[in-house]
């Protein structure tokens, strides 16, 4: 259900209590939220929980959602804030999730082209995970979710200049981390 319906229609139906309409919205925006959350937290069970929480927050705020911002942007803002909270919690717990030495990535199984692609993705993901949260968030929004610099600035509530400088520093750091794996 819902493939032919616009976001506004699905939101209106969900506001009226139509669960199928809300489920259609979840399906529609799963990939966007997954890109943000997994980009920020890595592919871990907490990412799934944060993804679920993002949609639960949307469900709870549906009555107040007036469509002033695009639903995707609204969800991304929730997802990025929840991810940043999770990172703070992680920092407090001194989790070692992203502290794994980048050399350990070579331990991944190598079984053909798919495995190689997965390994590359894993390396990139772990390199992103080694960035500070403030740099990671701009990389995720701009390069993974594909938001413009203006949209990224609006979502993170920071000036465009800050987005650009963080993006530039993040890319330099990522280049430094990834060069040993993908060559100079």
């Amino acid at each position: 259900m819902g493939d032919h319906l616009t976001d506004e229609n699905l939101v209106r139906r969900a506001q009226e209590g139509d669960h199928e309409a809300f489920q259609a919205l979840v399906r529609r925006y799963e990939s966007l939220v997954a890109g943000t959350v997994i980009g920020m937290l890595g592919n871990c069970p907490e990412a799934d929980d944060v993804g679920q929480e993002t949609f639960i927050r949307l469900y709870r705020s549906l009555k107040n959602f007036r469509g002033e911002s695009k639903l995707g942007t609204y969800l991304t803002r929730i997802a990025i804030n929840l991810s940043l909270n999770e990172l703070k919690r992680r920092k407090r717990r001194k989790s070692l999730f992203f502290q794994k030495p980048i050399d350990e990535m070579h331990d991944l199984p190598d079984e053909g082209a798919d495995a190689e692609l997965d390994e590359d993705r894993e390396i990139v993901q772990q390199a992103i995970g080694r960035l500070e949260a403030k740099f990671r968030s701009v990389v995720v929004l701009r390069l993974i979710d594909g938001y413009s610099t203006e949209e990224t600035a609006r979502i993170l509530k920071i000036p465009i200049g800050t987005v650009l400088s963080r993006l530039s520093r993040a890319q330099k750091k990522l280049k430094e981390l990834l060069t040993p794996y993908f060559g100079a």
Partner: protein
Amino acid sequence: MKKNISELLYLSFDGQLTEDEQQWLKEALEQSAQLRQEKERIAALRGSISSGAPKSFRPFFAERVMRAITTAREAKSGLQRFSESLQLAFRRVALVGATVILLLLAFNIVRTGDVSFAGALGIPQETLVEVLESPFDATVEDLL
């Protein structure tokens, strides 16, 4: 602020260069093979970041979200039921208590024939003179 060519190269991917900067970068790229290579590397890096991120959660994500919403709603309605029954029980206790208090007030009024507030509470009405002229005039010696 004057930007260096490396900064301009990174910024050029996000479309934030002035016309002068674009021109400067264009000329620098034409002159330097190393810079052109660097541009390709940045493009490849950005490509691998955007294509490398997983774009889905574990299977049946939408179903899990809906289940979590239903569970939360049921838990909320359970909590609501508990709160309502607690309110109902308290209301009964409050009603019985208020009735008992009213009966006691009425009993005191009937007993003393005094319809004042003090009479209803069963407080004996004494004047200041009556209190001061209390028959208690024992001395310390008597007490000892």
